[in-house]
């Protein structure tokens, strides 16, 4: 069965027709055409598909698109400003090596954003708990934690691991 839903997508009011059996992930990638949200495991284990619904991080692969009706959705594409300048979290990930292959980054950054929106002074323990549902196979997590810390008022002096930089190449 299909139904019409209204929702806010990255700040804009939208209506759409969705099939009952569509996951939110399918809807975002295949119908809306926004491919920043990734599919990893497809069963709520890896967090690559994390998006923010009504302020809360959720796994879009096990969330029905029909449930979006009346809610507000934020994907990674909604983070940068209209002029293309990056959100402080995105900037920190780039500068501190939090991004390597990039597959986990959209989900990782959105999990971090949901945490910082609620608790801008999050501790390292809070950060670790918030990203426990996001798997990264590149970084070993240290750079990711440093990146998030650097924007939450508890910034270490510099990155613990020096990230690759343009000027060095």
């Amino acid at each position, binding site marked *: *069965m299909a139904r019409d839903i209204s929702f806010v997508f990255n700040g804009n009011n939208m209506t759409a027709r969705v099939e*009952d059996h569509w996951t939110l992930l399918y809807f975002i990638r295949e119908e809306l055409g926004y491919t920043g949200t990734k599919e990893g495991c497809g069963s709520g284990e890896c967090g690559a598909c994390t998006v923010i619904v009504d302020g809360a991080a959720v796994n879009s692969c096990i969330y*029905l698109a*029909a449930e979006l009706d009346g809610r507000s959705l934020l994907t990674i594409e909604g983070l940068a400003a209209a002029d293309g300048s990056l959100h402080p979290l995105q900037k920190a990930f780039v500068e501190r090596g939090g991004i390597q292959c990039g597959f986990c980054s959209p989900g990782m950054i959105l999990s971090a954003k949901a945490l910082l929106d609620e608790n801008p002074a999050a501790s390292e323990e809070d950060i670790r708990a918030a990203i426990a549902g996001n798997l990264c196979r590149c970084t070993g997590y240290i750079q990711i934690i440093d990146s998030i810390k650097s924007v939450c008022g508890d910034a270490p002096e510099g990155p613990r691991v020096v990230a690759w930089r343009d000027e060095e190449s």
Partner: protein
Amino acid sequence: MHHFTYLVPGSLNEAISMHEARHGRAKYIAGGTDVLVKMKEGKLAPDCLISLRHIIGQDRPFLNAETGELYIGAFMTHRSIERSPLVQHRYPILHDAVKNIGSVQIRNVATIGGNLVNAVPSADGAIPLIALDGRAHIYGPKGDRQIDLTRFFLGPGQCDLQSAEILTEIIVPRQAPRTGGAYTKHGRREAMELPMLGVGVLLSLEPDMTTCAKARICLGVAAPTPFRAREAEKSLTGRPITEETLSDAGRIAAGESRVRDSIRGVAWYRREMVGVLVKRMGFLALERAKRTEQRA
């Protein structure tokens, strides 16, 4: 996923009549973090999903000041229970359990009722609620009924719910003064893992703050269903809580366990850890009971 119809009732009665009209071809869904995974894997293929998410209920745990009973709506997410100051301060054993279920993304969506009705041997949410002597409130075509959580679990994946019935609430009775409890999930990693073992201990002390007035020792993944190690509980009642008595209780609880080998751990190790963790949680429960008393 296969095609299905998604129905969104606004009341319990509406949900039940929708379920009955479909003669077993429908399934209730709350958060859906288990139902949708099973459907994707092809283990479930209902024609119709009936959502319980939009039925108005409690959005936070509610303590009845007169009766001292705590009401937890079954459709509450783990996250809302985790963040309840009432649960954090007065029911730390429950907080211990819900804060470690899945990940933030799962806890934001998955419900405590869903955790219970799945009736897996590892249900983290069930152990502390059994230790707290919780009751399940169930609503169905024939009206309301209540059942002790100890009798709610029948086997792996099976609980005492008839077709079309809905678990609506968990009721935790007034706790005795000088009570403390603690739960730990034992596994190889902290997040995103089902426990290899779940151990909850709840102790009520006599006014001397040493003698055990009441003990609850609940174990998960140590038998086909979550269960109370009643002999171990008896061994503590009336005795002082010490290293020795807690070690004894741990040993007895290990003997009462029906652990087995599985992908997450082998039986002998599980049995060994029952003893270790009962003692560890016993000490933490004791410490918390003393802290409760200082506050009172």
